[in-house]
């Protein structure tokens, strides 16, 4: 079993074990005693929490499927005004986290909000509040999450559409299919694994969502976990709730994994692929395609951006009250530390897996990358639980000082949990880079006299350069947007754009939340623009 024991294998094993700890903590806590909060909750809100989580999940999946697949289909198969612009502009929606979208929705539609101001300026004083719809509560949450997350479905579906050969479309025509019939009987079924993969990611993020649902006061399992920890100080029960949520998420995770395996069959080998010819739309059809994409682009990116910009200009004092530079440096500090750790360790772990070809390590790695499926709230709480257990069981017994201060409420703890949360992103990103290099390349290097380390340094790292850059940007983007982990584990007086926005919003100071939100959107958008060519990689690249 451990025939190929070497330093690479041991490093990979260690990394996987560290990442897997919080998952084990959540599972082991299932058997612990809880406070009365469980009884209270079971008889009162547990049903509501579960129902709300389900309503949210189903609705978000429906919306993201509709707008994600629809927009991907239009930009992949048709040419219409600005279709090339929309191709990458639609991914800017990733720059707006659901909680900032929620602030924008509220700010625009609330009584005497931006919509009211616009109407007043256009038509003079009147009681417009009665007629302005209110997008809050459950519907507000659904809209916020959908517009923020549809990008997953869009990117994966578009990539799958791109890999569809013109031959397939021609075959449909040859069989006498209309465009509509080709769409639902050829194009859509062959993109199914990609759509399911995108929807699974949306589902995981939706169940993990904290900021937006908390802002709209919707009680879900995730907010329940946070409340049981913060209000009732019941870690064990928080973990037990997490366990139920995790089971749900693991079911989705398995579904996603299975569909990804099938997705492999959709890659065309060299030679059989014929680049698609885009159909040029004219008149009404062109107009509707443009309007559809513009509406999504406007709603997902321009709307929250302009709302935050508007408030920042309207209330400039907030700009001066905040120490923007300090927030920027704090965010940057976290981004650099975490990305660096993630890239280095994921790279080592990937290489270890590659050279060891060990089944045990393979299983551990697969388990360890499930960290992405675990909501940030759960991870943060599981981490605190684990540190407290180590502290109580070992450190204090041995007569040493508590280690809690080193890991809880510190940058180290924050970076470790970010590491666990986004490990799968980094690991899979590098892995997909590695998949392009077959094992014979490594073996050729050995036979040319290269040792394992020299192969890693001289052959792999230069080859993976672009993948590493892409992974770095992707991880940075996630860390900039991340809220619950930073909220729970950040050191005293250490704020990021995300936490500052959240704190202002939770104190009903939405105008004050605008400045950090605006900066967060701008920085994230910048990262997206830099990496767009990797995210939207075309078939011939």
């Amino acid at each position: 079993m451990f025939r190929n024991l070497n330093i690479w294998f041991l490093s990979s094993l260690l990394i996987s074990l560290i990442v897997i700890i919080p998952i084990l903590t959540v599972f082991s806590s299932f058997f612990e005693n809880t406070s009365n909060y469980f009884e209270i909750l079971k008889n009162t809100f547990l049903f509501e929490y579960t129902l709300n989580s389900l309503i949210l999940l189903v609705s978000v999946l429906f919306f993201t499927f509709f707008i994600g697949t629809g927009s991907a289909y239009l930009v992949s198969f048709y040419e219409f005004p600005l279709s090339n612009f929309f191709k990458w502009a639609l991914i800017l929606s990733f720059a707006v986290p659901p909680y900032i979208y929620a602030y924008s929705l509220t700010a625009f539609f609330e009584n005497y909000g931006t919509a009211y101001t616009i109407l007043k300026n256009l038509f003079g004083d009147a009681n417009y509040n009665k007629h302005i719809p209110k997008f809050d509560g459950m519907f507000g949450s659904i809209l916020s999450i959908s517009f923020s997350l549809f990008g997953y479905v869009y990117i994966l579906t578009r990539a799958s559409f791109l890999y569809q050969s013109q031959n397939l479309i021609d075959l449909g025509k040859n069989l006498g299919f209309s465009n509509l019939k080709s769409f639902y009987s050829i194009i859509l079924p062959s993109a199914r694994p990609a759509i399911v993969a995108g929807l699974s990611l949306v589902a995981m993020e939706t169940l993990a969502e904290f900021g937006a649902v908390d802002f709209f006061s919707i009680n879900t399992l995730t907010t329940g976990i946070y409340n049981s920890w913060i209000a009732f100080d019941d870690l064990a029960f928080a973990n037990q709730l997490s366990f139920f949520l995790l089971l749900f998420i693991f079911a989705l995770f398995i579904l996603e994994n299975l569909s990804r395996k099938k997705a492999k069959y959709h890659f065309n080998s060299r030679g059989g692929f014929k680049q698609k010819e885009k159909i040029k739309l004219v008149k009404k059809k062109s107009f509707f395609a443009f309007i559809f994409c513009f509406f999504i682009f406007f709603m997902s990116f321009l709307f929250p951006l302009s709302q935050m910009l508007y408030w920042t200009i309207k209330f400039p004092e907030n700009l001066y009250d905040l120490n923007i530079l300090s927030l920027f440096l704090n965010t940057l500090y976290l981004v650099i530390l975490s990305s660096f750790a993630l890239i280095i360790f994921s790279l080592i772990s990937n290489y270890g897996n590659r050279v060891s070809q060990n089944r045990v390590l393979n299983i551990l790695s697969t388990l360890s990358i499930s960290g992405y499926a675990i909501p940030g709230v759960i991870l943060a709480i599981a981490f605190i639980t684990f540190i407290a257990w180590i502290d109580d069981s070992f450190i204090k017994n041995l007569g040493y000082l508590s280690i809690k201060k080193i890991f809880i409420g510190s940058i180290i703890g924050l970076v470790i949990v970010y590491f666990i949360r986004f490990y799968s992103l980094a690991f899979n990103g590098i892995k997909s880079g590695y998949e392009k290099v077959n094992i014979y390349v490594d073996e050729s290097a050995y036979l040319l006299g290269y040792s394992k380390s020299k192969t890693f340094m001289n052959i792999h790292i230069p080859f993976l350069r672009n993948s590493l850059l892409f992974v770095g940007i992707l991880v940075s983007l996630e860390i900039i947007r991340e809220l619950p982990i930073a909220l729970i584990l950040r050191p005293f007086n250490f704020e990021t754009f995300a936490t500052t926005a959240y704190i202002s919003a939770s104190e009903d100071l939405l105008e004050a939340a605008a400045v950090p939100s605006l900066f967060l959107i701008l920085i994230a958008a910048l990262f997206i623009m830099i990496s767009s060519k990797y995210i939207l990689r075309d078939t011939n690249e």
Partner: protein
Amino acid sequence: MSKSFFEINNVTFAIGGKNKVNDVNISIENEGDIICILGPSGIGKTTMLRTIAGLEKINQGEIILKDKVISSNKIHVQPEKRNIALSFQENSLFPHYSVDRNIHLGIKKNSTDNKNINSNEIIKILNLESVLDKYPHQISAGESQRASLARSLISQPDLLLLDEPLSNVDQSFKEDIQVALKQILKKNKISTIVVTHDSYEAFYLGSKCAIILDNEVKQFDDPYNVYHFPNSVQVVNFLNRGILLPAKVTGGNSLENDDLGIIKGKFIKHYPTGSNVQLLLQPEDLEHDDDSNLKLEVVDRKFRGTNFIYTLKTQSNKLIPVAVHTHHWEQHEVNEKFGIKRPIELEHIVCF
């Protein structure tokens, strides 16, 4: 001290229990000799090469190169320390380097070997000049296979292992490369093991061929012997260059078949008179003669460039292949009668 330049002694080759080849004993006697390994797909030929290269370990037997044990159940010299080059069947070029750089990575800086391989010559012979500046994803499968071959040659190995080296190369180009490759290998005294499923390639390149069938080396001999004197029915069936007919030994140099009558020739192995045997009949054994009274029905005719291969049906429904030069004055169509020259005299009689 071993007698041969390279030896495999009693080695069982296997990866995870699969593609097992048991108890192999083959050798390269002199430096610069080429041997070929022939066998059907999935039999373990590639496993053998990977093991010789040090990419897999062995549990029994030993592999010796230049008097040094490089693999045994106790010793495993790492691949990078063996100075053995393996040219893979699949694309193994470094994807982020140009073809030129890929090929020149083969040059070992500290090589003390006295082989003097000119990289430009290799590049020219393998017709790679036009793709030197391209990247692996921009060239064809045949070109990447040739580039990989060039890299292996330039690395000046003690032993070169070629896994189906020309499987992706165009037919029109293949023969020229085979000739050039053999010249380079001979000129530079590079000992080589070629794995192939193309028997003609093996017979041309190798001074000896090992036939792997049913998890073992069935025959290890020079190409002429493998072709004309196969040592088992399995080898005959694998080479597919003849059929086996039932016959009865009638004397020290003759036997009789119900359809063809008396057949004369020199037995390779002694069989007692009266014994029933299976006679190997190859396409070049029988001669065409329309004046003969022995006539068989043509059921198929294959054009093979130099020859036509006729498939003839006997009265007992056996199908016999007969080669006839394509310039032969009279050709026969399917369903026509085809005369066989009598008396039938064979160069050698191979029976089982």
